[in-house]
């Protein structure tokens, strides 16, 4: 009888086994190789990936994209291969694969490194560059947000929200952002027993969700945090990092680090999941910058999602609000920050609120930063099951703690004729506190 040898021997060397030769030396992708090597191709990420489930091609899955990243490094494909660019572009960056991955592949970092590398070969589409250009410039951004607010104050967005296409969707986003939950104003009092905190105002949050930012300050105060203002802060840089413009992201990060260093609060509260995830990863973003790395790590260590702070402090229960609410977990909260229970604790502090579980609440809604403006078709396809699941709950409010998700889901609800509304959990808690104040004064 013949003796079998291990047959892979005859099979090797495959390109993967051809040694450390690298086609893209010195690029961010080459630096990310250890993360790529952590993938053993088990496929456990497939069913977690919204683009794989929607587009049904493994090129649109984490495992597939990692294979393409590896192929880029091996030189089997080149950075200007249009197919590769499309598959990388189509990733939402939701990072649901990270919470499914037993091997701990840092997929979000790999994606950013890949996009940064592909950018060197060919620039992203004009609309993406335009948006990122504006977000990197505070004055322009303020102007844009001011213009958006003016527009939002008119009936135009609502009227236009049913128009088909991206313009209509954009208007629906604006319309859904412009009217947060109505509530009576109150002045929050607290004893500051849980420490001091700064609040990241953010660009979209301060621009379009101003009331939510004020509500954030009020509920933090009421829950025993002393809120300090931090001048000089700006955009967190998340949109730039996700798009692979790491230099712009680093610039914005350094500016924020400087600003928050000047105000040495114990915490930095963030009410936008995407921004919180970015700030928690400043240390990684600036890992190759010796002058800034430690400073970045110190800032990252102070960052908390607002729900984390509230949950740690209780939160203090509010006045009764008999509402049917469902909760959709923002990807950058549940997957990137791994914050799952605190937002539910925030909602549980509202007496009378009925929380209805949302099927697949951990799945992406298709917002993904500026993705919904650049990849509208895929974004719509990812949003569709989310809207169905929301409709099945019969809830009148969908709570979610990220401006992109608020507008994406809000716009989807508006355009589908649903009467349900998207709302930040903090707004619900704030309204509940306002009700309490009204009740006592009455």
């Amino acid at each position, binding site marked *: 009888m013949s003796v079998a040898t291990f*047959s892979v021997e005859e*099979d090797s060397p495959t*390109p*993967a*086994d051809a040694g450390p030769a690298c086609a893209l030396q010195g690029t961010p992708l080459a630096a990310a190789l250890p993360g790529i090597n952590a993938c053993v191709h088990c*496929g*456990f990420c497939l069913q977690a990936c919204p683009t794989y489930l929607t587009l049904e091609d493994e*090129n649109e899955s984490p495992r597939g994209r990692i294979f393409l990243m590896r192929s880029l490094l091996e030189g089997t494909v080149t950075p200007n*291969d249009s197919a590769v660019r499309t598959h990388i572009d189509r990733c939402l960056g939701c990072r649901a694969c990270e919470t499914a991955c037993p091997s701990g592949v840092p997929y979000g970092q790999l994606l950013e490194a890949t996009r940064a590398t592909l950018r060197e070969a060919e620039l992203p589409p004009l609309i993406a560059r335009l948006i990122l250009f504006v977000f990197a410039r505070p004055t322009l951004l303020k102007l844009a947000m001011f213009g958006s607010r003016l527009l939002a104050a008119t009936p135009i967005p609502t009227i236009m929200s049913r128009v088909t296409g991206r313009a209509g969707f954009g208007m629906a986003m604006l319309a859904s952002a412009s009217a947060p939950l109505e509530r009576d104003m109150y002045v929050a009092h607290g004893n500051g027993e849980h420490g001091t905190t700064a609040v990241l105002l953010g660009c979209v949050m301060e621009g379009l969700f101003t009331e939510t930012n004020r509500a954030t300050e009020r509920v933090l105060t009421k829950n025993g945090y002393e809120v300090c203002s931090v001048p000089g802060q700006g955009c967190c840089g998340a949109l730039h990092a996700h798009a692979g413009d790491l230099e712009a992201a680093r610039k914005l990060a350094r500016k924020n680090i400087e600003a928050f260093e000047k105000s040495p609060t114990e915490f930095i509260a963030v009410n936008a999941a995407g921004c919180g995830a970015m700030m928690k990863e400043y240390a990684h973003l600036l890992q190759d910058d010796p002058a800034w790395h430690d400073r970045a790590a110190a800032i990252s260590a102070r960052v908390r999602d607002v729900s984390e702070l509230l949950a740690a402090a209780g939160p203090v229960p509010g006045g009764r609000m008999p509402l049917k609410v469902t909760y959709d977990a923002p990807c950058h909260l549940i997957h990137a920050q791994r914050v799952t229970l605190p937002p539910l604790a925030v909602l549980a502090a509202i007496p009378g609120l009925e929380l209805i579980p949302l099927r697949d609440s951990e799945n992406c809604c298709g917002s993904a930063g500026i993705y919904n403006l650049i990849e509208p078709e895929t974004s719509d396809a990812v949003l569709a099951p989310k809207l169905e699941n929301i409709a099945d709950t019969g809830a009148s409010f969908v709570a979610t703690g990220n401006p992109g998700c608020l507008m994406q889901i809000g716009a989807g609800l508006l355009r589908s004729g649903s009467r349900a509304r998207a709302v930040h959990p903090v707004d619900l808690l704030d309204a509940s506190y306002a009700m309490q104040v009204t009740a006592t004064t009455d």
Partner: protein
Amino acid sequence: MSDTALAEKLVEIVGARFVLERESDLLVYNSDGLPGYRRKPRLAVFPGSREETVAVVRALAASGTSFVPRGAGTGLSGGALADDVVLLGLHRLKRVLSIDHENLRAVVEPGVVNLSLNRTVAPLGLLYAPDPSSEAACTIGGNIAENAGGPHCLKYGVTLNHVIAITAILPDGEIVVLGNPEGEIDGYDLRGAFVGSEGCFGVALDVTVRLTRKPAALRTMLADFVSVDDAARVTSAIIASGIVPAALEFMDSPTIKVVESSVYAAGYPADAAAVLLIEVDGTEAGVNADRDAIREICISGGARTVKVAQNDAERTRLWQGRKKAFGAMGRMAPHLVVQDAVIPRTKLAEVLARISRIAAEHRVTVCNVFHAGDGNLHPNIPYNADDPDEAARVHLSMGEIMRACVDAGGSITGEHGVGLDKIGYIELIFSPESLNAMCKLREVFDPDHRSNPGKVVPIHSCQEWRATPAGRSSEEHGELAGAAST
């Protein structure tokens, strides 16, 4: 037919988005769950419905084109690799067609993911019993191809025991029903032949699966040992006691460490040499008695502690660690090989000791995580294929481990299938006559060997095939079959 003409024909059937022709689009389909192997498909086609699947298979038949059916590409034997033939992806056929609650059965398409079938039937108090560790990703079609097992197959049986009938399209385009959806099978059990045929007999279009009522009660236990030997002997002792646990799983120290460093950390004791994850199910009174008996066997067999999961969350955590262990090994090294040998349970201690000596001799790390109750070993070796010396040592070790298992009276695969990876070992356990009989069985379904060519049985084993000039030339460039026998 030229590739272009074939692609055009397939595009007419499934649409342009679901026919991949460009090399860069096909790259990710060069590998399945065992990325040490890469094979380039000629093109890939993903039908979205039963009708499209039938039309695609018939178009391939009309042009005499060979193809490889593929589910989710989670297989661990290279079984779904297409070497210059068409890759037929069935992952889009993912509908649960019907659930017959009263008769405990469901009809599903082949691309339905194992876990999503379970999620669908769970609200009815039902489950689909075979639970391979890749359940979160693998498809029912792939489970049928490999006759997949899983931890709970110890008590409930493997895929074959849970498939009532299969409507399949044969490679020549004929549609047949194998088994009887109503229950009794008349004549030969061709369903039994199809399950485990590794994609060589055709493509399932729909599958009638058996559903099982959720047990009334469960007890999940974790016994930890300071000696691998003790854990192995306790495994035999539990089975010998007459109790049939729902599952009885073994993990050794390197496996425990890697799982504990992952997002699926389950609270396994970091200093244990081995743990046994044991589950019993049945009635409330019965499981308590079994739990006590098993605890007694474990403790008297040398277990330090036996911890019982107190609630569903704890149970899930204990299981998630076990089920994600394979994926977690990416933390140790970029490449991974795994074997799937089955040995008599009573030889566990002896074979594990032999494996440990082989590992030490070749300076490789073996992580043992396996279905101990079935004697189904899974020695995993994480390694860096970029290091030729290490790769050579790993390959030597795997060969020796496999021989040790065969010497102990075992077989070469329990549930992963032969595929490409174990084709070199098949002649260790089958005579030329047996292999030729397998070829003849295959030819009943696929006379031209067009479905998943070059897998399971080495082509040179098919005597009639060998007699033809085409067969001889196949033998010459049959690199795997030839190369693996020295």
